[in-house]
């Protein structure tokens, strides 16, 4: 979320698209309801009428997988009716940037496409460069750190300033290109693609586009309904572009809100658990970065805050490898594995497993036997493993994949180890929520039996591996044996607070190699590229530091040396909601409750809540404002608002010198951008399994997606499988059901696997509620109870009737209390081009009544 949960109450229009917030994020509705009490409108866009839709002022049924067409039509509506937030677009986006004439778009493809490689040459979508400004690395220059002793040598970058047309009239400026691109997305066309009735579509557009008026706030809440498509990343980008056109990012009540599907999924991505990431959203090195210098030169941006990237990488390596990481050995950069350039996502990992390329698998709170795409294939793939370790609270379906229905148990040789884990009440540590709040949670009880804290399990395994490598040697043993593991208590057990301090970062005490003064750094602005600081996750710097008021001088705050989480920012629990700027209204920012990354900013990009001169767009919802001489602040500014000299002299940064989006090279937001695999503007493509041809171009599917072999073999066509299916979650159950199908109180509230079928389709197929039905495609067949309901209805799209059915994916075979068909036996293992998130949310099936 660019804002946070409690900020939802400040919205004027809430769009829930591809999310079922009421069921999957129940507490979010507290704040949506609070907004509604103040007169806000709620719009829910979903193929099926959910419990979120039950609360909506406007429900918009859509053909699954056509969100991009919906957004494209909205842009067109905004342009046609001149509803964009003109001041915001000019001040805070790249609308005025002039694009090179090598950019073009024709019939679904952008310029630079290589059909053989299924990839684009993104340099064709660059800007016209007006001026090249090399980094000033002189002792007084902005980049003097580059030449500091200890900093690895690399070629300093050159800032390429784009040519602009502030009037937005140049035909090659982003704004004009965008207008042209989306002029094809007429209401007639969008209605034809999405199946949304045209009047209803225009009603929705009118409701949401009204938030383009300066001072109005619209928020979009989304989840897997947007992301789990073969163009899921572009859907996310499309929402950002929508919000930028309407001036809805960086303001109170506005934002692009990813509702994270698990309580700490935000934390897991912050920690870089995806194959392409390092902690703090640094990219993992690949074969394109064989040396530290090449990584720095390719990964560091030439402008904006990411110019500091080397500081974060080297500080991370210093935390990972401690004293072993030195300038001479490139701060142990060579110890990091370099990706071979092919994706190693969940899909690709199981594909490799099926091909016998993987021997062992460690699963941590994962249940791919039920949760993976095309999960029967994943269960078959696991049979090729020599060993598997499953760390979980329960015996999941994956832990007993060899007992799955249809499995040839006798032929499976995989050795499986179950390690019982402690649940969250049985261990302490931090959890990051969707609003980036990092909150410390305390241990309430000891874990039962042999169950252990995950960190303790990792530590025990690591220490054993280290011992074995030291005794027996092996390939590149230093990679493990030289790791900094200064996280143990006197008894040799893991001390989570020591890890927290390592994540937070500190100045290295040359004498001890540990944190100087025993305290963490308050800001990542203090991290260095010269090996003098260590920091596990730079965006978290400041969360595990404490302040206290000096009793001798109440004005003076001191940082205390303590490892007590209650005294740390992540443990702070001050629920006062008092605005800091006199005369302004409280906005639910709660700066004293926990700590939000980065630097406790609650609404990021908050410079955009003001015009170019620093005047708030909405005087009732002030985050920051320029009073003529300095910035007044209710939130922590997400921009350099002042400079503090060594002698303590503070110089405020005037509005014209501040950066709206300091994380981009452009230092403004990108309506047009070269960072995505399938083009600079999001474009509509059909899901890989679709009942319709693409109505907008002859390019049927995302041109940048490569399909793995097992998926290509099982793709279905609408002549055999005419019905669109989507999957969803229920408030009563959790993910693959490992947690909830073992709890009778929860099972009772939703005891059986079912599928939602429209009344029309039920009649056509002779199905009534309560019948057992078979749902099948080339990947599998499952049975479920029929739930015939008006909540799902056929749509007319592309001139034909499209039937959609929907089923939860909570059931499996591994519980005594509640078992049922696995919806993911039917989902395709085809991933998005940028992230490889599977296309769980739209695929084709057929359905029939089960013969008794």
């Amino acid at each position, binding site marked *: 979320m660019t804002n946070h949960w409690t900020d939802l109450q400040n919205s004027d229009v809430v769009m829930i698209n591809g999310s079922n917030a*009421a*069921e999957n994020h*129940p*507490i979010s*509705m*507290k704040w949506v*309801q609070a907004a509604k*009490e103040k007169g806000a409108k709620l719009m829910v866009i979903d193929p099926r*009428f959910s*419990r*979120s*839709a*039950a*609360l909506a002022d406007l*429900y918009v*049924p859509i053909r699954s997988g056509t969100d991009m067409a919906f957004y494209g039509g909205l842009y067109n509506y905004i342009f046609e009716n001149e509803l964009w937030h003109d001041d915001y677009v000019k001040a805070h986006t790249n609308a005025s940037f002039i694009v090179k004439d090598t950019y073009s778009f024709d019939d679904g493809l952008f310029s630079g496409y290589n059909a053989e490689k299924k990839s684009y040459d993104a340099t064709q979508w660059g800007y016209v460069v007006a001026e090249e400004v090399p980094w000033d690395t002189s002792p007084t220059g902005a980049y003097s750190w580059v030449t500091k002793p200890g900093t690895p040598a690399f070629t300093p970058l050159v800032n390429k300033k784009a040519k602009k047309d502030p009037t937005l009239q140049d035909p090659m400026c982003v704004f004009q290109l965008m207008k042209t691109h989306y002029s094809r997305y007429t209401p007639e066309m969008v209605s034809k693609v999405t199946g949304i*009735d045209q009047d*209803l579509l225009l009603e929705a557009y009118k409701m949401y586009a009204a938030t383009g008026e300066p001072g109005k706030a619209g928020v979009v809440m989304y989840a897997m309904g947007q992301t789990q498509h073969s163009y899921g990343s572009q859907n996310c980008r499309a929402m950002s572009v929508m919000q930028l056109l309407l001036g809805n990012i960086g303001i109170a009540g506005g934002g692009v809100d990813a509702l994270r599907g698990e309580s700490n999924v935000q934390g897991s991505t912050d920690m870089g658990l995806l194959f392409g990431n390092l902690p703090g959203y640094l990219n993992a090195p690949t074969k394109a970065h064989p040396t530290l210098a090449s990584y720095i030169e390719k990964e560091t941006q030439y402008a904006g805050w990411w110019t500091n990237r080397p500081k974060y990488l080297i500080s991370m390596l210093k935390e990972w490898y401690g004293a072993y990481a030195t300038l001479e050995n490139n701060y142990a950069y060579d110890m990091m594995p370099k990706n071979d350039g092919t994706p190693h996502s969940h899909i690709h990992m199981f594909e490799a497993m099926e091909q016998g390329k993987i021997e062992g698998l460690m699963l941590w709170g994962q249940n791919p036997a039920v949760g993976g795409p095309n999960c029967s294939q994943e269960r078959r793939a696991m049979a090729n493993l020599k060993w598997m370790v499953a760390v979980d609270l329960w015996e999941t379906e994956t832990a007993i994949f060899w007992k799955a229905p249809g499995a040839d148990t006798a032929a499976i040789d995989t050795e499986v180890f179950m390690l019982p884990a402690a649940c969250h009440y049985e261990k302490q540590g931090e959890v990051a929520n969707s609003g980036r709040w990092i909150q410390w949670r305390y241990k309430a009880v000891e874990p039962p039996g042999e169950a252990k804290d995950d960190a303790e399990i990792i530590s025990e395994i690591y220490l054993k591996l280290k011992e074995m490598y030291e005794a027996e040697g092996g390939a590149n043993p230093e990679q493990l044996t030289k790791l900094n593991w200064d996280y143990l208590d006197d008894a040799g057990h893991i001390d989570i607070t020591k890890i927290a301090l390592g994540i937070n970062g500190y100045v290295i005490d040359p004498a001890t190699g540990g944190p100087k003064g025993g305290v963490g750094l308050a800001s990542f602005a203090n991290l260095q590229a010269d090996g003098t600081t260590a920091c596990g996750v730079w965006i978290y710097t400041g969360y595990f530091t404490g302040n206290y008021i000096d009793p001798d001088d109440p004005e003076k705050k001191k940082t205390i040396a303590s490892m007590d989480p209650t005294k740390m920012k992540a443990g702070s629990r001050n629920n006062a909601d008092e605005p800091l700027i006199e005369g302004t209204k409280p906005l639910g920012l709660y700066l004293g409750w926990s700590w939000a990354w980065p630097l406790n900013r609650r609404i990021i990009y908050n410079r955009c809540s003001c015009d170019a001169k620093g005047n708030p767009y909405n005087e009732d919802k002030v985050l920051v404002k320029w009073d003529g001489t300095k910035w007044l602040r209710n939130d922590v500014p997400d921009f350099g608002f002042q400079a503090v000299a060594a002698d303590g002299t503070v110089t405020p940064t005037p509005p014209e010198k501040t950066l709206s989006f300091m994380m981009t090279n452009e230092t403004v937001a990108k309506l047009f951008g070269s960072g995505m695999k399938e083009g600079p503007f999001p474009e509509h493509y059909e899901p890989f399994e679709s009942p319709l041809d693409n109505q907008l171009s002859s390019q049927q599917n995302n041109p940048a997606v490569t399909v793995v072999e097992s998926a290509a073999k099982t793709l279905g066509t609408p002549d055999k499988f005419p019905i669109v299916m989507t999957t969803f979650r229920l*408030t*009563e159950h959790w993910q693959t059901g490992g947690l909830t199908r073992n709890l*009778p*109180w*929860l*099972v*009772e*509230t*939703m*005891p*059986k696997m*079912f599928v939602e079928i429209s*009344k029309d389709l039920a009649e056509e197929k002779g199905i009534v*509620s*309560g019948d057992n039905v078979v749902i099948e495609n080339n990947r599998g067949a499952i049975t479920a*109870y029929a*739930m015939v*309901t*008006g*909540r799902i*209805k056929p749509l007319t799209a592309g001139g034909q009737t499209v039937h959609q059915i929907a089923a939860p994916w909570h059931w499996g075979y591994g*519980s*005594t*209390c*509640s*078992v049922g068909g696995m919806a993911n036996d039917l989902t395709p293992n085809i991933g998005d081009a940028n992230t490889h998130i599977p296309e769980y949310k739209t695929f084709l099936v057929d359905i029939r009544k089960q013969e008794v």
Partner: protein
Amino acid sequence: MAETAIMYDSSKCTACKGCQVACKQWNQLSSPLTSDEYTYTKSFQAPLDLSPKTWLIINFSEEDKAVGIDWNFMRNSCFHCTEAACEKACPVGAITHAENGAVSINQEKCIGCRYCVASCPFGVPRWDEATNTTFKCWQCQDRTTADRKPACVSTCPTGALQFGDRADMLAAARDRVAELKEAGFTKAEVYGENELGGLHTIVVAQRGLEAHGLIRDPKIGLTDFWQLLKPLGGIAAAGVVGALGFSYFMARDYSRDTMVLDDATGQLVKVTEVKK
């Protein structure tokens, strides 16, 4: 102690069933342990009905529309009536009003006669064959007397359930209905203000009483009472049942102290006779 009430605002309810589960957890009511013991309900309403082990459920009703549906939710549990039919019907004084208006069954006194089951216009009390006693929501009096909200209220994420002085709850419900009407829900109304002398569960019915399955102007009457008694044959001969009921209505101060502990078995012995 002032009269208190739970307020259920159907317009804020997301039907997450958190209240259902919290009720069972706090009151330690069991659920079946094996898959076979569960049946498919064909609905999001699960379990389908109240039972001795389920004192609160969310009811779901769908009204089909051209686009989507009206999905009407209702909290189905005891209303804690001022004129409580169950209390009037109970021959042994097992059902009583607390000072705050909450109505509860004392299972130590309950004889399993099921008069309350038959008399309740809302069908709330449920008889348990295994223990031959009847159960229902008691508004978590162990919590409310310790200055805590009932379990269902404390778990509600959206503020659809609130607990407080009945007068405050009524005022809040009236305000909410006014807001809803302004927002286009013209049939919105408050339930529980005067029904059966005033209920201690106040409902904001977003789309009107009927849409949420609420009985307009509920009544308890002697005629209905006798009608309902006829099919029952619980503890003894029908005549005894009749006599019990009749005696109750004729002599409300009648002594009904008929439960005795059998020293030999340690069990409570059920009523065996009626004295005038």
